[in-house]
């Protein structure tokens, strides 16, 4: 009876997973239908095909010098230009991260209730704390809901192009994201130690700081490093709104047809991102594995000497100090080279620009004429009905289709990206592969890992831009670009989850003669599926956010309307669509939060 019950339970949960996968496929079809896309739109036109051939051929010979013949004699060498654009990308990302860390930590502090005292607060203090909490939450929700490219667009229109605009455009949404995730990480920590310190009479902030933060620090650092990587990607694509980072040079090189130059830029951007990723995984590893203390060399009768000895053996992480120092130097140089960042902010020209932007340009057109805010309502209604709703829906379809494609293809790649499934032994149990099969498996795994690394390192916007040139103006390039980047992330993360999951059940499958595919499908995948679904919704949220700007490449969705209004100098309309996008992102966030908390509870 008990066994039967067990089987039924398994069946039910298996059925849930199955229906989740089927549901995603159905929704995918629905989204594609909504976008009016068919599979045949996926085939590039003759022109696109020719372009693709040329572009792909150029990949083997990245440019080492200017491709243009009309370069003046005294122009700086080509590598100079490449390095400069890379440095600018890194510089903006670094400065933005510095600001985002300070703001993110301070905002994050108010976004968690974990440091509030449980006992005997006066109601006035409690009231004040709740207000601070609500205000901080509202700020981070709003700041995050506008994509960095749109912040850049706003800053550039309000102040003019400047390093400050670029840095603030990154810093604002990044501080909000850091604040949100930091507070979530802290909320997930075990509170027992903190309670124990409170039982020792610690003040509330002390028991929070010493009881909860230390165990959160590894996660906080690895998330900050991940965001730094993202900041470099974001800085690169700021080029598409006119800031001279890598993206700018890629766009101009494409317009001029200098494909070899594009590859030079792509390769160097990729190299920079991969170096940063490897560096951060090295730091993560160092932090997470405490070094085994060495044996005591000599014992001494003198207490002070003994303590000195003990201290010496324990401090072995010199490499960490080196990296931290390097990052410090990088931050210092970023703030102190090139165009001064805050230089002409105070200039009258900029002040006038800002004043005009805030007080005139973004005020809805009819309100500017009549001075009556009631006139804004029919104006907004008109925009919403004629284009807004349709574009919002399309943006939603693009994001959803992309994440589903990324998830489904990720499921297939995960076993090949996991370390534990691609050697001759699974956690010490021999798989009995023949030599050739072992080698083939290794090769497939290496290929998968490389593809995952490249796709997750490339900014989704850049991928979409390149695909657009080849596939032509449909929504496909946007979907595929977004899907590729997320596929890279999900594939890698899934692999990590598999490597860290409990191998005991899986070992039984091998003992019963199963192969690695069965191992993955019948034990590992079912046991980690819930976590993958959590991740699916988390990335879906991000996809919606990214999809709001994708249209800026010229495909009808919110981004297109924003870009179009900006080109026509209709700032009020532009601002309206940006806010519409922000609403979509906020709704997505809320829905995803609700669904995720359901799945977490399950």
């Amino acid at each position, binding site marked *: 009876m008990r066994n039967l019950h067990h089987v039924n339970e398994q069946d039910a949960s298996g059925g849930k997973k199955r229906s989740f996968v089927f549901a995603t496929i159905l929704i995918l079809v629905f989204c594609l239908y909504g976008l009016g896309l068919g599979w045949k739109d996926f085939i590039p036109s003759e022109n696109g095909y020719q372009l693709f051939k040329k572009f792909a051929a150029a990949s083997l010979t990245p440019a080492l010098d200017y491709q243009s013949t009309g370069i003046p004699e005294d122009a700086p060498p080509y590598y100079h230009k490449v390095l400069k654009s890379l440095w600018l990308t890194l510089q903006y990302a670094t400065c933005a991260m510095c600001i985002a860390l300070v703001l993110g930590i301070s905002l994050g502090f108010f976004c968690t209730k974990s440091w509030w005292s449980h006992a005997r607060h006066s109601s006035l203090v409690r009231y004040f704390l709740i207000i601070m909490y609500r205000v901080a939450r509202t700020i981070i929700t709003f700041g995050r809901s506008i994509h960095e490219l749109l912040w850049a667009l706003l800053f550039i229109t309000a102040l003019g192009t400047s390093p400050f605009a670029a840095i603030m455009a990154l810093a604002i949404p990044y501080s909000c994201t850091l604040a949100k995730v930091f507070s979530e990480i802290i909320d997930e920590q075990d509170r027992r*130690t903190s309670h*124990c310190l409170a039982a*020792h009479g610690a003040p509330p902030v002390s028991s929070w700081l010493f009881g909860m933060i230390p165990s959160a620090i590894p996660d906080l650092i690895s998330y900050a490093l991940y965001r730094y990587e993202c900041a470099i990607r974001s800085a690169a694509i700021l080029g598409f709104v006119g800031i001279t980072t890598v993206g700018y040079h890629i766009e101009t090189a494409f317009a001029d047809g200098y494909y070899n130059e594009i590859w030079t830029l792509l390769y160097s951007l990729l190299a920079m991102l991969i170096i940063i990723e490897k560096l951060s995984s090295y730091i993560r590893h160092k932090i997470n594995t405490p070094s085994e203390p060495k044996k005591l060399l000599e014992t001494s009768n003198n207490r002070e000497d003994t303590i000195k000895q003990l201290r010496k053996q324990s401090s072995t992480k010199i490499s960490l100090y080196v990296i931290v120092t390097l990052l410090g130097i990088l931050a210092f140089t970023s703030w102190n080279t090139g165009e001064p960042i805050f230089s002409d902010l105070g200039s009258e020209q900029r002040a006038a620009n800002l004043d005009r932007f805030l007080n005139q340009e973004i005020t809805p057109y009819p309100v500017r004429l009549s001075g009556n805010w009631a006139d804004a309502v029919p104006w907004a209604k008109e925009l919403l009905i004629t284009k807004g709703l349709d574009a919002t829906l399309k943006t939603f379809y693009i994001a959803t289709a992309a994440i589903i494609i990324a998830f489904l293809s990720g499921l297939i790649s995960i076993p090949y990206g996991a370390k534990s499934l691609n050697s001759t032994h699974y956690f010490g149990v021999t798989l009995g592969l023949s030599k050739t099969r072992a080698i083939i498996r290794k090769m497939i795994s290496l290929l998968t890992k490389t593809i995952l690394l490249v796709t997750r390192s490339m900014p989704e916007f850049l991928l979409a831009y390149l695909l657009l040139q080849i596939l032509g103006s449909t929504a496909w390039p946007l979907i595929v670009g977004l899907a590729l980047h997320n596929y890279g992330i999900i594939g890698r993360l899934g692999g990590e989850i598999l490597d860290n999951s409990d191998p005991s059940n899986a070992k039984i499958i091998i003992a019963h003669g199963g192969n690695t595919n069965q191992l993955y499908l019948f034990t590992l995948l079912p046991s980690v599926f819930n976590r993958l679904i959590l991740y699916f919704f988390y990335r879906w949220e991000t996809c919606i956010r990214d999809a709001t700007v994708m249209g800026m490449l010229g495909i009808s969705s919110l981004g297109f309307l924003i870009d179009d209004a900006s080109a026509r100098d209709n700032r009020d309309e532009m601002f309206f669509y940006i806010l519409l996008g922000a609403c979509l992102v906020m709704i997505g966030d809320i829905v995803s939060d609700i669904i995720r908390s359901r799945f977490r509870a399950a």
Partner: protein
Amino acid sequence: MAKLFQLKNITKRFGSITAIDCVNIDIEQGEIIALIGSSGSGKTTLLKLLNAQHEADAGEILLLQKPISSFNHKQLRQTRSKIAFIPQDLGIVKNLKVFQNIFLGKVGLTSTLSMLWKFLFPPKSEILKVHKLLERTGIADKLYSITSTLSGGEQQRVAVTRALYQEAHTILADEPISSVDPARARSLIKLLIEISRENNLTLIMSIHNIELAKEFFPRLIGLKNGRVQFDGSSVNQAELDDLYQLSEEQLTQ
């Protein structure tokens, strides 16, 4: 001699459950006491009432003749900072160094900022003190180790050292031996009792293992359904059988 703790008709409820039901206990400074009883008999709640982690619903707890319930926030913290509490999971921060965990013993007497300063730039005199205490508990060579690299038994000793460093008058220990093997359990109890005697500390420990309780503790308090079943220096088998006899309903809970 003045009583350290006096519990007068203490009752504590959680919703519809009465965890502690009209308990009267007197405790003197330097007493070594074992709390015994089955799971859910109220041992943990009683310990938490003693350093005011819970407030009693009825009755009064006097600490050195003063009622705990009358303390303001500051007095409460001062009171707690003189009582060491060792929870079942030890309440130590695993990824801090051992000396930092021990510094946390004084967290109640130190402001957040000066604690942070002490963490990052530990003063030599304090390190010397900690090293001396660690020598007493037998893990002096772990002074600078990350606590998570220590074995379970060594981590318990970190918690004991923290209590010593705290210079408390009382140690409250909530089943600290439930997760270790018998040999380690015995040596930890011995250590705690020795240290308490050396420093004239009051030790109140909840414990599941009756044999160990009878062997080491001069005073045993038996709790059942939140009531004191017996309180004295010895206990006979009939009383013990009664203490652990559960109703059918309790067994299936």
